[in-house]
């Protein structure tokens, strides 16, 4: 075997290993099996287990959005099992994105008693872990698109996320809770670990870090006065060094739902 052939074979083996490694880390395959004959036997319980392997899949009518869509209106009232992560989340609804290459999403209503479980659904695609399973009841389709909507019945594989411990005088410590409360959050104080993005004369974009973030909108506009400029300069502009910044939520923009706020102070840790 000459040198070039050896190098080529070695390189190809490396590429195959790289591909296999990346699949292990990132690909979460979705099953395409459909169960159409057995009606749903799910209950809206709040039980959850941290290990997805512990509990078998519940019996549902569909296991992919596509299968439900193909049944058209017949799918309304039937149940759907999906592995998901979540996007925009408010007090009563959440956008659930399907894990895996098949993709898709749907908007789902949830009761207040499932809020802790909804919050426990990852707000980004899990890099290595499993996406939690959820059971939904399809209620119809969105007014202007072909996207289905539904009611959340069961969240599996997660432990309910308990309420955050709030420092004195602070109403929120995560964007998740702010988004969930919606307009009710106006006028309240949030203390979020964040870093400073785009900065203008009297405003900067704050990006919450780690647990201060959440599903959906993950930044906030922070207004500041001329005498707060030095304080703003002290806020890190690097995602690697986030600091607790206290802000007063003022208004929520009409179409984007982005929050405007007023800088209150920076808490040094």
């Amino acid at each position, binding site marked *: 075997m000459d040198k070039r052939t050896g190098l080529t074979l070695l390189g*190809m083996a490396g590429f195959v290993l790289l591909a296999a490694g990346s699949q292990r880390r990132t690909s979460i*395959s979705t099953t395409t099996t459909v169960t159409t004959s057995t009606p749903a036997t799910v209950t809206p319980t709040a039980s959850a287990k941290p290990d997805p392997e512990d509990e078998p899949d519940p019996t549902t009518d569909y296991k992919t959005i596509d299968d439900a869509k193909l049944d058209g209106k017949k799918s309304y009232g039937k149940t759907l099992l999906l592995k998901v992560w979540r996007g925009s989340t408010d007090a009563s609804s959440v956008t659930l994105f399907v894990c*895996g290459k098949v993709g898709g999403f749907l908007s789902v209503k949830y009761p207040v008693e499932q809020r802790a479980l909804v919050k426990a659904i990852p707000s*980004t695609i899990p890099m290595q872990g499993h996406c939690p399973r959820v059971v939904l009841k399809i209620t119809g389709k969105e007014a202007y698109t072909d996207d289905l909507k539904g009611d959340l019945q069961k969240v599996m594989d997660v432990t309910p996320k308990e309420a955050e411990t709030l420092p004195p005088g602070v109403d929120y410590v995560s964007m998740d809770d702010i988004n969930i409360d919606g307009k009710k959050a106006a006028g309240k104080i949030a203390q979020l670990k964040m870093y400073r*993005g785009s900065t203008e004369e009297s405003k900067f974009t704050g990006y919450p870090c780690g647990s201060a973030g959440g599903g959906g909108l993950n930044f906030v506009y922070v207004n500041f006065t001329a005498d707060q400029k030095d304080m703003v300069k002290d806020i890190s502009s690097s995602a690697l060094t986030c600091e607790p910044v206290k802000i007063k939520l003022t208004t929520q923009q009409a179409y984007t739902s982005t929050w405007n706020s007023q800088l209150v102070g920076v808490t040094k840790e």
Partner: protein
Amino acid sequence: MTRGKLAAKHVALPLALGALSYLVWRSALPFWPSHVALWKSAPSVLRDHFADGAWGWALGAFVSIVWLGERTPRRAAWIGVAALVAGGVECLQYAHVLRGAFDPVDLVVQVGAVVLAASTVGGTRKWISAPV
């Protein structure tokens, strides 16, 4: 351009970009302001296929660079092997030998990227009819 520079540009860079795409489109890293959840239609192409295309390009370029200046039939044969490897990786997912979901779009993207890279990388020195 030397082989080293070609390899940096067409092998290392695409692999780095592919890895970066995983971080940007699939991770919880907070540096990306346009949160993926807010971008409902565009990311599927970037999230699901960009890295595969970059990987295919790097593989095709690697083989092409190694066999730069070699006779056309031999070089073409190795590029064919590389294309088979690229397709094989996806087919092994279909057969559940490799973990992951088989996606026909990935198959086309990966094999296409190998062929495209192999026929592009190397400039004027890429194909010769006589041995060096």
